[in-house]
């Protein structure tokens, strides 16, 4: 039985794990870097161990240091959160060797999930559709052409050594394929001296839809519904919601069945997420399994009523999942906005520094998981996620309007945030209509609309700004002129 958990993480997810442990009467051990000595996860754990310098490699990724803290604290288990060591099968192996319960899948299963080629093979064997394409590398242009004709144009030619738009080409015919094959090969050789090409069906206007699932050590497997995470920037999720506006009960069940097969195919245990691309024609294609708790798990908690961290601990304890697939009912609608410290207008560049003042939204159907408190600091050493703002409603409209109000109430002084962007998105007709795709922001010119929204907001606040400026200069004048002017004595600090 798990009685003392070391949380090998920081920020809001460490707090999230500690909270459930507290309700279960489980002791917690935090670890912290030099940068985090004043962080909430240090304050809220039963114990806290300093593990090194600010740079992740010297602290939160330092397996030896973390193991040392596990052993000296007497923790019997490790919760890795997400990021850092959460999908590192070496670390899972290290825990297994030291008889420490790793709250997650086995190292073996994690390794299989992490190897995209092997994982894809396992999925094909389990009849879980993946994006159509060559099973591996193609031999030459003719081989590529053969596959392209099997799966149908348009297809994507991808060098496995490419990335960031380089070594990639979309082609729509045999003729285009031939010239495309040459240029991708050329680009790849020019860049890294070698070339190796994959062919994949090119999908337009795709949605990112993923399924939460759980599997226990007794072989019971359930899916806990889908989450649509199509609103992204640079392949990073920004807004997630459940249910997806285009998943009906029948589809939910059909794809859910695939997800359960996928979990079995990789010998998974504990909580995981199966990610799919959903093509505009309605087909679902498996992409990968995230072998850990996801950032966006709270929306699933809202609609399922489950505490997913508790479920993780129960499964890690060897207990069977305490419900059947048919017991799960979806209740209402939930949305999550990832409140990032970033400047939307500087291509989402991180914005860091001290946060002298914060007000955190609350109210019916509002949950905010955050490490922020007045006087804290947003560190440049770690990721930009400051808070997860999650709302629930009986209807989608209720969850959406509650989110808009909560975004309005969220005050974070000192850093740029993604809050204004989310207001623009949530107010857009396309979002309201559920017309989502992974290129949503670009497709609908959201950044330009945001600029307009901010301008309008400024105009609305301009009288108050002018009044504040007038008062400020009067106050300043009174100080300069050294009048002990009684009119400023009223209600001043």
């Amino acid at each position, binding site marked *: 039985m798990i009685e003392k958990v070391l949380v090998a993480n920081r920020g809001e997810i460490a707090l999230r794990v500690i909270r459930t442990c507290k309700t279960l009467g489980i002791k917690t051990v935090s670890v912290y870097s030099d940068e985090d000595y004043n962080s909430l996860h240090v304050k809220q754990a039963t114990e806290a161990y300093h593990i090194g310098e600010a740079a992740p490699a010297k602290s939160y990724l330092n397996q030896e240091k973390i193991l040392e803290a596990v052993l000296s604290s007497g923790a019997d288990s490790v919760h890795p959160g997400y990021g850092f060591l959460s999908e590192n099968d070496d670390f899972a192996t290290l825990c297994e060797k030291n008889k420490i319960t790793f709250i997650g899948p086995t190292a073996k299963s994690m390794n299989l999930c992490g190897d995209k080629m092997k994982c894809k093979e396992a999925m094909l064997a389990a009849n879980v559709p993946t994006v159509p394409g060559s099973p591996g590398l193609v031999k030459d242009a003719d081989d590529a052409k053969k596959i392209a004709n099997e799966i149908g144009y348009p297809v994507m030619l991808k060098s496995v050594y490419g990335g960031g738009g380089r070594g990639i080409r979309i082609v729509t015919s045999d003729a285009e394929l031939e010239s495309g094959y040459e240029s991708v090969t050329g680009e790849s050789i020019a860049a890294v001296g070698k070339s190796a090409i994959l062919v994949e069906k090119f999908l337009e206007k795709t949605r990112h839809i993923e399924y939460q699932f759980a599997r226990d050590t007794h072989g019971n497997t359930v899916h806990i519904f889908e989450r649509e995470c199509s609103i992204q920037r640079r392949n990073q999720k920004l807004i997630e919601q459940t249910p997806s506006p285009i998943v009906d009960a029948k589809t939910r069940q059909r794809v859910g069945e695939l997800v359960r097969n996928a979990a079995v195919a990789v010998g998974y245990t504990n909580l995981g997420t199966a990610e799919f691309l959903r093509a505009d024609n309605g087909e679902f294609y498996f992409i990968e399994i995230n072998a850990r708790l996801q950032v966006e798990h709270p929306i699933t908690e809202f609609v399922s009523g489950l505490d997913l961290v508790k479920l993780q601990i129960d499964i890690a304890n060897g207990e069977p999942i305490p419900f059947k697939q048919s017991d799960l009912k979806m209740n209402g609608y939930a949305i999550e906005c990832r409140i990032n410290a970033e400047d939307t207008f500087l291509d989402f560049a991180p914005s860091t520094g001290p946060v002298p003042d914060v007000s955190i939204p609350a109210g019916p159907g509002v949950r905010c998981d955050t490490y922020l408190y007045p006087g804290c600091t947003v560190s440049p050493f770690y990721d930009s996620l400051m808070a997860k703002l999650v709302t629930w409603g009986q209807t989608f409209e209720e969850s959406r309007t509650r989110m808009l109000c909560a975004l309005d109430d969220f005050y974070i002084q000192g850093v740029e945030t993604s809050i204004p962007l989310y207001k623009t998105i949530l107010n857009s007709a396309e979002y309201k209509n559920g017309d989502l795709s992974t290129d949503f922001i670009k497709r609908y010119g959201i950044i330009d609309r945001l600029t307009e929204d901010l301008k309008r907001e400024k*105009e609305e606040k301009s009288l108050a*700004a002018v009044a504040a400026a007038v*008062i400020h200069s009067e106050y300043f004048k009174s100080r300069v002129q050294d009048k002990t002017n009684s009119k400023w004595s009223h*209600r001043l600090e």
Partner: protein
Amino acid sequence: MNYKIQDTTKSFVAQMADNLGDGRYVISIDEHRHELEIIAMDSRGIEFVMDKKYHKVRYIGQSTNEMSMIVDNTSITLCLNSHLDDIVYKNSGGGSTGDAQLALKSQIPGKVVSVSAVPGDTVKKGDVICTLESMKMQVSVKSHKDGTIKTIKITESGTVAKGDVIAEIE
């Protein structure tokens, strides 16, 4: 004074019109009168109810002709005519019969942001001698007379108290 809202086309003429006492004021903006009650105020910000609507404003910074603030949850920069420099200037004797005076004194406490003159420089009345920062605002200190800089008593990044001598001008 004239206030222009950056990134918009809005521009306003505004001034304090009345002090009703007990923290209540009337501010005239484009000749409309707006009643305002101060709820809390310090050098970092102000909370007030204007036209029955509550606002919370934090002052972020001010240079000679720009003022940045967060109004409720919105960042706003105002472009303004630097009236404050003139007040400091007048108070330092620049406005009247300060010619005989040797010392140019600081009218406010603050940090020295920059020094624009060195001993030996010839200056005219109204020339900027240095820029001070106080209460997140930048204020130029101008020479109170024509003359030659005899000594500069301040250094960049240093602080001055009210009444400290900034320079001696002969």
